[in-house]
């Protein structure tokens, strides 16, 4: 790929990232909103947040603790489950795999609420346990519970990265280990997982970062005990001083950006060491599932346990709630079942349009985003240059803005940049905002796949007479198909669930399910929220089920 083209792609991407982020950083040095003429340059926002606000320190520490805990839980579990479901002959894996992704389909506020309905102080499961033991052995609103739930609900993220990498491994090394006497667990730990180290590294960094950005879960589960995290602290700042304090919010974002620096640095160092684990070498070998033998039952047990706690319990509670007129202490389930909420939902204006818009952005928009991510990745592929380092640091930065302020930043960008103004009220602005904010996540799925391709495969193309672009088209892209599909699934699911990034870019006609949900939640129509979530979930499960069925057919 010609050097000029590579540099152009890097520059454009950098510009798109630095646009909104730069605006926010600029805002942090102002005394008022940047668009008001009487705002002056000052460091008072920094002084206030860093030195006077105890809440900020508390929120920062909490966020860090949750991020670490979350990563420590999600990464091992996610990797293990990916190995079990992709590399072994675990029974029923074809049905289980779509279910693993379910926590990602549900808006985090709604999912958290599902936990409340199930495991809260008067939750369905809690009351049931209480009827036997007299008390509830857990407290849903503790910090431990929050970390646990955050970790468990982010297993799908790690799973996506690990599984798409594992799909492109040949089985020869695993089988060698197996025949040498290693059990499946040993094979996983010493062979398969080390071979996908780049993917695991990426996933760890990204999940850790999501920990800083966490909003929905702490909002619902952290509120009762006033566990403050950075995103809910931002939420506080929109009201604490009367009118939203953009300058203070910007300082919080800058503090999160500073977290990206050591994070990416560590990732790059670890990645350099792990590059010897290149797996798709020239020597092709068949992919045969590893026989799991006697480990079948413990493995299934692990997966079922995770599914139970993270998926079945909250989702069932949600779905059940959508059929209940009332719930809680003293309320019987059977006598309160109703379909009234669904009937009310059907009358809700713009519901169908919202669903259609959402699916449109998620499928078509998602595919376009993946195309963009692939393009950026290919531009950086096998390019030994300092530009790649620059972009490595930059891609994570848009996600340093929690949804609340990401939405504002995107809005301001479109509002005040003459070139972008005409697009503000269209789906394009929404798409661009989503694509930018999730850049690191979509890109990493593709880059991890790219890393696993042995350079000889592409060199073989070159010496046969193919120009670099032809190599990309004929060799590289087909080989990263698993990564591209994984990326598309991630983006699809994320776009369906997204709300805050586009909230200011939405207008009548471009509403999406996320905005409908939050609208309903805001007016207290929780029953409609659960009904809509149930419908949403059903649609997605059907869609994904179809995708997996088709995908698996082609694999054979």
């Amino acid at each position, binding site marked *: 790929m010609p050097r000029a083209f590579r540099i152009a792609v890097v520059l454009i991407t950098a510009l798109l990232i630095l646009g909104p982020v730069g605006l926010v950083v600029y805002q942090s040095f102002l005394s008022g909103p940047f668009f008001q003429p009487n705002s002056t340059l000052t460091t008072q926002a920094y002084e206030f947040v860093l030195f006077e606000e105890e809440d900020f320190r508390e929120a920062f520490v909490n966020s860090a603790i949750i991020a670490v805990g979350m990563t420590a839980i999600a990464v091992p579990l996610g990797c293990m489950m990916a190995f079990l479901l992709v590399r072994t002959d675990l029974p029923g894996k074809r049905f289980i795999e779509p279910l693993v992704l379910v926590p990602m389909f549900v808006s985090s506020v709604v999912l958290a609420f599902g936990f409340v309905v199930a495991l809260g102080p008067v939750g369905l499961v809690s009351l049931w346990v209480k009827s036997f033991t007299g008390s509830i052995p857990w407290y849903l609103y503790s910090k431990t519970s929050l970390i646990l739930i955050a970790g468990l609900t982010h297993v799908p993220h790690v799973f996506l990265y690990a599984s798409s990498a594992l799909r492109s491994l040949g089985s020869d090394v695993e089988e060698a280990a197996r025949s040498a006497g290693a059990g499946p667990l040993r094979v996983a730990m010493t062979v398969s997982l080390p071979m996908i180290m780049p993917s695991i590294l990426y996933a760890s960094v990204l999940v850790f970062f999501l920990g800083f950005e966490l909003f929905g879960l702490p909002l619902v589960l952290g509120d009762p005990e006033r566990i403050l995290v950075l995103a809910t602290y931002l939420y506080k700042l929109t009201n604490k001083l009367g009118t939203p304090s953009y300058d203070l919010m910007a300082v919080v974002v800058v503090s999160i950006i500073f977290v990206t620096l050591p994070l990416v640095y560590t990732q790059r160092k670890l990645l350099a060491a792990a590059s010897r684990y290149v797996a798709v070498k020239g020597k092709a070998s068949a992919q045969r599932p590893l026989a799991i033998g006697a480990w079948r039952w413990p493995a299934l047990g692990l997966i079922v346990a995770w599914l139970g706690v993270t998926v079945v319990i909250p989702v069932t509670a949600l779905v059940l709630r959508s059929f209940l007129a009332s719930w809680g202490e*003293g309320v019987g389930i059977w006598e309160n079942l109703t379909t009234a909420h669904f009937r009310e939902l059907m009358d809700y204006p713009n519901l169908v349009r919202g669903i259609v818009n959402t699916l449109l952005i998620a499928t078509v928009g998602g595919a376009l985003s993946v195309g963009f991510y692939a393009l950026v990745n290919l531009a950086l592929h096998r390019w030994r240059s300092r530009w790649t380092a620059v972009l490595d640091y930059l891609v994570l930065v848009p996600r340093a803005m929690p949804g609340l302020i990401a939405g504002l930043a995107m*809005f301001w960008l479109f509002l005040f940049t003459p070139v972008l103004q005409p697009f503000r009220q269209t789906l394009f602005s929404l798409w661009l905002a989503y694509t930018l904010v999730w850049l690191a996540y979509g890109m990493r799925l593709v880059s991890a796949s790219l890393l696993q391709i042995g350079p000889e495969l592409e060199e073989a193309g070159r010496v046969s007479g193919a120009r670099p672009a032809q190599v990309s088209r004929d060799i590289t892209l087909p080989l990263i198909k698993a990564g591209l599909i994984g990326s598309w699934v991630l983006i699809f699911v994320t776009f369906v669930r997204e709300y805050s990034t586009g*909230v200011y870019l939405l207008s009548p006609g471009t509403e999406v399910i996320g905005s409908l949900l939050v609208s309903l939640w*805001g007016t*207290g129509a929780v029953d409609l929220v659960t009904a809509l979530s149930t419908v949403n979930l059903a649609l997605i499960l059907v869609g994904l089920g179809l995708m997996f069925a088709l995908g698996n057919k082609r694999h054979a």
Partner: protein
Amino acid sequence: MNKRLALSLALSILGFVAPAQAQTPVPPGYPAGYAELIEAANKEGALSIYSTADAAEVSELLTQFRALYPKLKVEYADQNSTELYSRYVAEAAAGATADLIWSSAMDLQIKLVNDGYAMTYASPEKSALPEWAKWKDQAYGTTAEPIVFAYNKRLVPEAEVPRSHADFAKLLAAQPDALKGKVTSYDPERSGVGFLYITQDVQISPSTTWDTVKAMGKANAKFYTSTGAMIERVVSGEHTLAYNMIGSYVLQRNRKDPNLSFVLPKDYTQVMSRIAFVSAKAKHPASAKLFLDFILSKAGQVELARHAMTSVRDDLQETHGIRSLPGATEVTLKPIRVGPELLAYLDQITRLRFLKQWQRALAAN
């Protein structure tokens, strides 16, 4: 004969002319010049509304408005009050924004009006509004909704239901352990409306309010920002008592689930109002004025009251105002004045001072 011919001729001519008039009907009682406003609005052909009222709740209202003025294309964007504020000020700075701003965040609306964002317009309906609900012919309170106590009927025996603010304070002080973790209210730090209502409480009845706050602290009360979450938790029994809830939401839920019951406090019940104003730089000012007049009109107010947004009009109080609600006949109503007093607590220092006081009261044991 000639007279009859002349009459029938006149009538037939009127027959041609009258239908043309029917396309722009001036509402009864409005000044004659109103027809020009309608003409201007029809020429504008569109209307953009930013509001905090849920689209589903106002859909019939909008249908009626569209039927009255079919030439107007109405765009209605509902969002929460903070988003509305952020969006509006940024768009105003950039040039083009919505025409009618209608929000339940009273203090933020007054600030916008005070900062010059509102157009002066004397609505023909303004005489029907009480004095407290209008300011400078710019800000108009469009509803009069009570701030209530909500409680879980299953779990709170009738005898214990607090009927007044004083009752509430006494109840909490008397049973801190029984009510531990069972009481909930808005968090003034994070919820603009929560802050507004509690500061109003302090102005009306300082000692009782601070007693209540201290008692809430002792009883480990939980504070949230989301009305929906709070109502849901009272319904489920996780909490049993809620303080300072927005009445319209509670009412809506009560209609569907009688388990969620409510009390209009006898000693005084705060009344909040959704303030509307026409944007000064509106692209469609005439249409905005039409809409404002409509929601203040009897027809509009009746429609709003059907969705628990009780009427602000003096002549509809008995039938569609707060007085029409169960148990509302003897209460003393204390409306939050639509006026510059609301700006006092938007001052950062004042606000922070109050919040510190709040925190200290909660922690005082």
